[in-house]
């Protein structure tokens, strides 16, 4: 799998000039930005905020009843949604006062087994929203500082930063399109992506500007290593996604683990974007940079 992909990508990179390589990643980046902008205009936020960030109650129960039946059953509470998740039904409620909340909890735990309840007050939700934005921002800046300290040259460092930024934008746009909400789990995935996605960029940039050898050769070797890295990670994530999402179909005693399922799918989207951004976008910029006449082939021998 990895070898086939590497050959394909390697040939593609060798046979196209820098401009052509940039076209696809920049186009995907632009489309993602448009998706997010449209969402901001329509809803005021680039992502649908999950319960943790908005306040409300989420209750998931093991049941053979359909979501519609449950929605009807709890219609006296501010139920906003009920959906199937494997052998479970997840119900979503708006913010309630303490008494109503307690009544609902007693009601549900009395009726069903294997209950999971999560409740977040609107004040805490707002606090979390602010903290989430801060966390993403600080992580990104921190990553940029590390990258700059590693290379100490403007264009290569900036390209790595941009490629990581694009990974995140694409992953967020994917979440929007696929209808995945921003939850604590998906936030963790986005932060993880900041750390993960620069790995292969660092490898590439390091090999090309800090190593002797012909540029094409160095890129091609870096690609062999880099694609292996990303595919091993993707393999681990794909298994995590499949087991946490679908295992109940095979083994009925298993259950969906939403947290793991969400983390893995967002990371998968981000890492696929990363393959494209590293080996097309970052490679193209780097190849253009190191073959600039003013370096007189300094990086190409």
């Amino acid at each position, binding site marked *: *799998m*990895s070898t086939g992909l590497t050959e394909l990508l390697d040939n593609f990179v060798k046979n196209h000039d820098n401009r052509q390589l940039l076209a696809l990643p920049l186009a995907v980046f632009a489309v993602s930005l448009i998706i997010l902008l449209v969402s901001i205009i329509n809803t005021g936020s680039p992502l649908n905020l999950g319960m943790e960030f908005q306040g409300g109650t989420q209750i998931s129960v093991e049941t053979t009843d359909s979501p519609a039946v449950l929605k009807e059953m709890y219609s006296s509470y501010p139920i906003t949604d009920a959906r199937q998740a494997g052998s479970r039904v997840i119900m979503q409620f708006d913010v309630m006062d*303490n008494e109503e909340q*307690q009544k609902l*909890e*007693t009601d549900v*735990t009395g009726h069903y*087994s*294997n209950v*999971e*309840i*999560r409740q*977040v*007050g609107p*004040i*805490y939700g707002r*606090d979390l929203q602010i*903290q989430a934005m*801060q966390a993403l921002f*600080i*992580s*990104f800046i*921190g990553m940029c500082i*590390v*990258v700059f300290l*590693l290379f100490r040259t403007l264009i290569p460092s900036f390209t790595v930063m941009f490629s990581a930024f694009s990974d995140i934008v694409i992953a967020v746009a994917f979440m929007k399109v696929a209808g995945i909400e921003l939850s*604590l*789990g998906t*936030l*963790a995935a986005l*932060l*993880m992506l900041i*750390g*993960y996605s620069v*790995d292969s960029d*660092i*490898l590439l940039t*390091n090999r090309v500007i800090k190593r002797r050898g012909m540029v094409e050769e160095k890129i091609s070797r870096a690609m*062999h*290593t880099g694609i*292996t890295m*990303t*595919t*091993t*990670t993707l*393999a*681990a*994530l*794909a*298994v*995590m996604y499949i*087991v*946490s999402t679908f*295992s109940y179909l095979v083994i009925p005693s*298993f*259950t969906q*683990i939403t*947290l*793991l399922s969400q*983390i893995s799918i967002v990371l998968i989207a981000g890492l696929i974007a990363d393959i494209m951004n590293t080996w097309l976008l970052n490679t193209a910029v780097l190849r253009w940079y190191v073959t600039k006449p003013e370096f007189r082939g300094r990086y190409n021998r």
Partner: protein
Amino acid sequence: MNDKKNLFKNIRVIIFALILLGSIVAIHPSYTPGKGITTNLNFGLDLEGGSWLQIKLEGALAQVDVDSGKLISGIVEPAIGAPIEITSNNLDMGGSTSAGKSITFTTSAPVSVSQIESLELGTVSVDKLSDTKTQITISDTSKETMIVAYLSKALDAEVVIVPGAEKGIVYEIRTEVSEQQLEALLEKVGGSIHKNQDGTSTYKEGVSSGTRDLTKEILSDKLNSLGLKDIPVRTVGEDYILIDFAGIDLATAKEIAEKPGKFEIRIQTTGNQTQHVLYGDSIVSVGIPSYHDGQYHTPFTLNEGGARALQKIALETGAIDNPDEHYLNMYLDEVQIYGAPLSPSAAERLRETPIYSWEASTGTDEAAKAEAEALQIHLRAGALPVNVVLVGSGHVDAGLGSQFKTASVVTGILSLFAVAAVVYFRYKRPEILVPMVGTSFSEVIMILGVASLIGWQLDLASIAGIIAAIGTGIDHLVIITDEVLYEGRLPPTKVFASRIGKAFTIIIGAAATTVIAMTPLVVMGFGTLKGFAITTIIGVFIGVAIARPVYGVVIKELLHVDERGNGGITE
């Protein structure tokens, strides 16, 4: 044979082996028939079953400026229903001690001593100068006392001075109050919220760390006294407290947390007989223990009803004439926690008037200090010093938790297999595959070892973190492998060392970005995600410092053996 010997002489390999062994000992896996496999690992609520409550402490901190003259008018005029005229005032003199400070004013309305005393400003004396003029002097007072009295009356909440504040006096208002509300209140008495030197307001939402810790202690004390052992109460961020109830459902947890303890004061009548005086709801506020007059004291204040009840019963039982025969005993949930006679001076004063402010003295030594502090918690009887609101809660059934646990273990193992398959497909050499997967697996064991050593609770998020660490770990091992075999064959030892060095510059760079990206989650208040971030960071450190260098050594030895027979790596 020779190579193998070298391998086990390598200091890195020895350290690696020792830490791996240590981790297994720390995890301490054992199998008991019937009970299955048991370990020392702690699991979080979402894997063990149970519920949690997250509460926010409401309050505000601010430094304030006021005009002491207007302030006293603002406090006294509504209480006596008539305007006052200040005749002398030395409250604005330096220093915050109340010694020698007093304020004198006159009014046309008739005023009694107890009327002013109930305002709790200081020592009161009232002189009737003429039919239409009464002079009142409040001594042993200070501007700070007045501010506290004014704000607590106006907001119907406890207001205290934060101890140990360095720059100016910080008032802690133990209820929710906005900056605008506070500003408006202060404006009425010619005051304002103090500004910092840079022009920002000193108003801050939240409570002092002392108050937060006190709240935490009261909660721990109360929950653990209910016979529920080991309910961890943690502070999260500045204003949040998280309580974990392992194995208890949400409804019960809420009931436990909301139910206050039963506090009662009883008085000795004859012999061992006692009579009820008041319950905990008569206690308005409890102060911070202090040392004065050679003893430790815990101050507390009674409300109107409580103060009158105490006076009445003291008179009826004869405690006023013979305090030593009539101890005042305090009980929390029917257990006696304190007992002492009325002091002679208090007994004397009770003859005339009810007393609102009391102090329970506990003695002179260190034990007395501890008792005073315990009493501070007990007097509150589970009532918290600040208003709290429930901002989050959660519940996972034990059955669901164990499903999660099994599923995540299966996920972890299958992920490792998937990674192994990709690695094998890429290199097609077992002498690379085995050390790679072995290293990765040892890293997981070490992460778990550290987790059980520090008593970390593994929850679902931590498990995701471990899987993420496997992912980065394998990435780095791939970098090492490819770097070592850069020309497709194993280089001479000298070159090999520099190759490993190069690999590690990339690895350390990549590891640094991961650690940096995860740091905000550790520092900030995210409960669930903290576990994810911490396990990922621990994993990265273990990997970079311990496991991956050893992989470099091992792979060199293994490939070296192979190199003599069948050189090179096929691509």
